[in-house]
């Protein structure tokens, strides 16, 4: 019949050497035939041919009831065969094994040294076409199999063009893999981590429409934190969503950037709709805050326009005012009543007009009572990102174990090394920097000694700085995600002065939550984020610090002995790491917020700078003995005309100019401190006497330096330090210095210019 092929030889069949299927019906007639290239299972008039390289056999004689059993496993079938006698079984078994072995060697795939083996290897490289499997029907598999199941590296090609290339396990896609699906519109590519035949964990899908999703999956669905790019830039319905997903739907906190409409939503989602607290900003400077119900701003909300009109009241959609409310005009005049209509197209108002009694002069977005209260609190934003890292490091386990967290770190770093090795071929220089960074992370500072000294703190700080810079370290991974979401939120339409407050709150919240992660790795760090004093190792106090119950008790201990100490806090540890990475968008917000004031200040500074050193010093009221121009003053009067410019206090001016290139508040404060030191040095070098500063003398000189330093966004700089400076510094010398800078800014801006 159909099985007759010239090269095929029948080696054995169940007619001559009985082999039965247990539990087979009375009327079915099973015949098992072994050919030199396959095992045939004939049943009545139909038969199945199993190529021998995908046949695995196993003897099961130990079971009490079923003696002499041979289990035959093929990718899609399992046959349980029973021989009459143990001898028969052994016979079959031997023949099957040797034939399978022969087959495998014909294919020349197995290694030579295995020829001596009696049993064929469990793992084989095979080519197999599925016929029945629901998921893999008509797919051809080329790759490794273990006992009838796809296992290890392999490739699946479906007859309809779908392909999967990657890792398998337990007969399903498992591990890293790439799945390509041709559709009418083009290719859909799913790449990432697979488990149980579906995307699970981090992955990307490039849809045929051009949409891209990058983020986490669960059971093949978008789940957890992810970014969805819809449409091409500038095309129809181009949008970017970044945030939380549940079962392919936007759900949780997320930011949606609608590029075409010029609108950005930052708030809660449910079932793919904006639902809950949220903020909308538009390209034309409008700001909305309120509650969303199925995609629509509904009920009480707040609207602020870029000309400082403010509406607090009921909405039926963004820009659609409907219901009771109060509109405050830029002049301060108020209209209270019932509103109906669209802000852009005309409003019907039934209400009362109140003339404001005082003139509001303001160039800045003003604060409003409801501002920031109807939106999502910063601590509730981006939880998935932190949850993911914490879960990775074992935070959710009942017993937090730093050793376990470090094990995870080690695994991650090893994975990173593998990636780098692959990268080496493409860009050796990049690989080199990455691998040296990985190497330096191999030495872990002592993390669980129960004691924190200045020395060990610095080691930890050093390590963390590197770890947060390395994309393979969980910490680096975390900060990359944070930078991504921050940029997604506050770049483009998000560069909106009214979002500054939200951005600052978010940064403070990041630091708080990042610190939890850091403490998982370094339990020696104090448990609360506030300022804590630490001392050198040799200090007697080091022993006395209980890290777990660390509290304000240590703050301001008896310092009469004047031991060297350092004050540390979550912010002082993490700002210098985080802020440089998000500095441009953050500073843009500050610059936008302070734009008008800075413009005004800049005008003044430019005007003041037209004067020569001497004129400016006289103008600012600096006492003559601090002019430091004795030689010049003694010179001929005629020479005074070509008065020196930009010479006095040049080193201090130069120092202060570095303010803009310092990224964290503490670094900026250090720049200010350095400026004061330069001033003092300059004066001391010149006057030589034991001069002691008082504010009366110092202030004008500092103002001179500030004017000469010509800092373009001085107001923004001041505002930023003000927002992010740690409160424990405020009363200290740095706080005083900063206050003096602030006062200079105020003075430059507000002092009447005399001519």
């Amino acid at each position: 019949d159909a099985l007759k092929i010239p090269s095929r030889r029948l080696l054995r069949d169940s007619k001559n050497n009985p082999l039965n299927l247990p539990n087979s019906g009375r009327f079915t007639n099973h015949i098992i035939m072994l050919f030199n290239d396959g095992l045939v299972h004939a049943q009545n008039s139909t038969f199945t041919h199993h190529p021998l390289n995908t046949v695995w056999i196993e003897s099961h004689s130990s079971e009490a009831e079923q003696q002499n059993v041979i289990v035959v496993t093929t990718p899609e079938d399992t046959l349980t065969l029973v021989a009459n006698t143990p001898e028969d079984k052994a016979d079959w078994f031997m023949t099957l094994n040797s034939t399978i072995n022969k087959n495998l060697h014909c294919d020349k795939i197995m290694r030579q040294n295995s020829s001596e083996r009696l049993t064929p290897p469990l793992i084989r490289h095979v080519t197999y076409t599925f016929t029945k499997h629901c998921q893999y029907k008509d797919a051809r598999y080329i790759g490794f199999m273990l006992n009838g199941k796809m296992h290890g590296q392999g490739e699946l090609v479906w007859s309809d063009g779908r392909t999967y290339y990657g890792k398998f396990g337990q007969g399903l896609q498992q591990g890293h893999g790439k799945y390509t699906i041709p559709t009418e519109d083009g290719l859909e590519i799913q790449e990432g981590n697979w488990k149980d035949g579906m995307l699970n964990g981090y992955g990307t899908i490039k849809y045929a429409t051009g949409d891209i999703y990058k983020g986490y999956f669960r059971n093949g669905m978008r789940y957890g934190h992810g970014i969805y790019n819809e449409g091409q830039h500038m095309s129809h319905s181009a949008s970017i969503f970044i945030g939380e997903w549940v079962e392919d739907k936007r759900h949780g906190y997320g930011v949606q950037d609608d590029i075409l409409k010029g609108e950005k939503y930052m708030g809660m989602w449910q079932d793919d709709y904006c639902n809950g607290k949220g903020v909308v900003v538009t390209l034309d400077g409008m700001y909305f805050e309120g509650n969303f119900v199925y995609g629509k701003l509904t009920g009480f909300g707040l609207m602020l326009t870029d000309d400082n009109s403010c509406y607090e009241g009921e909405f039926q959609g963004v820009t659609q005012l409907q219901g009771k409310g109060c509109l405050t005009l830029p002049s301060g005049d108020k209209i209270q009543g019932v509103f109906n209509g669209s802000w852009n197209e005309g409003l019907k108002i039934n209400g009362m007009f109140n003339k404001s009694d005082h003139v509001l002069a303001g160039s800045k977005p003003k604060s409003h009572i409801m501002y920031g209260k109807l939106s999502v609190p910063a601590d509730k934003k981006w939880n998935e990102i932190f949850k993911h890292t914490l879960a990775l490091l074992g935070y959710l386990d009942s017993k937090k174990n730093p050793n376990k967290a470090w094990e995870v770190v080690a695994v991650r770093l090893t994975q990173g090394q593998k990636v780098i090795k692959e990268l080496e071929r493409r860009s050796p220089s990049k690989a080199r920097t990455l691998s040296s960074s990985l190497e330096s992370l191999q030495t872990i500072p002592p993390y669980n000694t129960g004691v924190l000294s200045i020395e060990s703190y610095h080691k930890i700080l050093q390590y963390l700085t590197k770890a947060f810079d390395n994309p393979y370290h969980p910490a680096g991974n975390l900060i990359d995600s944070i930078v991504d979401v921050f940029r997604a939120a506050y770049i483009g339409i998000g560069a909106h002065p009214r979002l500054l407050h939200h951005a600052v709150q978010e940064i403070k919240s990041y630091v708080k939550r990042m610190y939890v992660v850091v403490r998982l790795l370094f339990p020696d760090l104090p448990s609360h984020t506030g300022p804590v004093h630490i001392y050198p190792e040799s200090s007697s106090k080091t022993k006395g610090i209980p890290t777990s119950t660390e509290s304000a008790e240590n703050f301001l201990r008896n310092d009469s002995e004047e031991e060297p100490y350092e004050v540390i806090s979550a912010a002082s540890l993490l700002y210098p790491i985080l802020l440089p990475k998000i500095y441009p968008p953050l500073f843009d917000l500050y610059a936008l917020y302070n734009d008008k004031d800075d413009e005004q200040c800049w005008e003044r500074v430019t005007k003041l700078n037209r004067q020569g050193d001497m004129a400016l010093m006289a103008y600012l009221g600096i006492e003559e003995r601090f002019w430091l121009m004795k030689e010049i003053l003694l010179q001929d009067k005629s020479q005074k005309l070509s008065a020196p410019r930009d010479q006095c206090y040049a080193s201090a001016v130069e120092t202060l100019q570095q303010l803009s290139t310092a990224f964290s508040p503490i670094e900026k404060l250090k720049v200010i401190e350095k400026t004061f030191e330069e001033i003092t040095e300059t004066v001391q070098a010149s006057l030589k006497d034991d001069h002691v500063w008082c504010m009366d003398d110092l202030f004008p000189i500092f103002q001179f330096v500030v004017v000469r330093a010509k800092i373009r966004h001085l107001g923004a700089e001041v505002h930023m330090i003000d927002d992010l400076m740690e409160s424990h510094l405020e009363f200290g010398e740095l706080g005083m210095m900063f206050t003096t800078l602030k006062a200079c800014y105020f003075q430059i801006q507000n002092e009447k210019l005399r001519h």
Partner: protein
Amino acid sequence: MAGQSVGGRNYNFKCVLLGEGCVGKTSLVLRYVENKFNDKHITTLQASFLNKKLNIGGKRVNISIWDTAGQERFHALGPIYYRDSNGAILVYDITDEDSFQKVKNWVKELRRMLGQDVCLCIVGNKVDLEKDRHVTVAEAEEYAASVGARHFHTSAKLNRGIEELFLDLSKNMITKADDNTSKKSSSLGSGAGSRRSVIVVDDEQPTQKSGGCC
């Protein structure tokens, strides 16, 4: 929450020094400091910023003394400096009636901006020049009492009355801080116990004319 009592037993106070240019406020603090500290403890800002640690009845107190520029043209900068202060030392020259008027202006402004939470100390300096006195003792002490401030006579030159001044001020600030803490705990939740208990958003960005920031 920058200052005030931390943990109930340690105090961190900020104290501004206000007064006209030539009343000798700098010499006042310098005298105070020179007696107590050796040179290396003088800060970068020298007499403009001084830190003093005291132990009063087992309570540890750290006072930061902020000098201000006394020139009239810098008057508007006051709020930037005295913001969040626990105490203010207002210095006048007993030989200069005008400087006493200035002090009165400062007191009015401080009471308006900071309310009753700030401890005020009015100081008549230069008592070594008693013969040139233009501000009578009675007038000054009466005024001080009327605004709820303490009054002291000092001489930076003779080092008189200075130690007492700072000791008394510190005790006052401790009492006030303790009051606030207990008030805060009794009216827990209202958050109005102390002006520093909440970060008030419109706590004025002094750099802005409009006053409000987000």
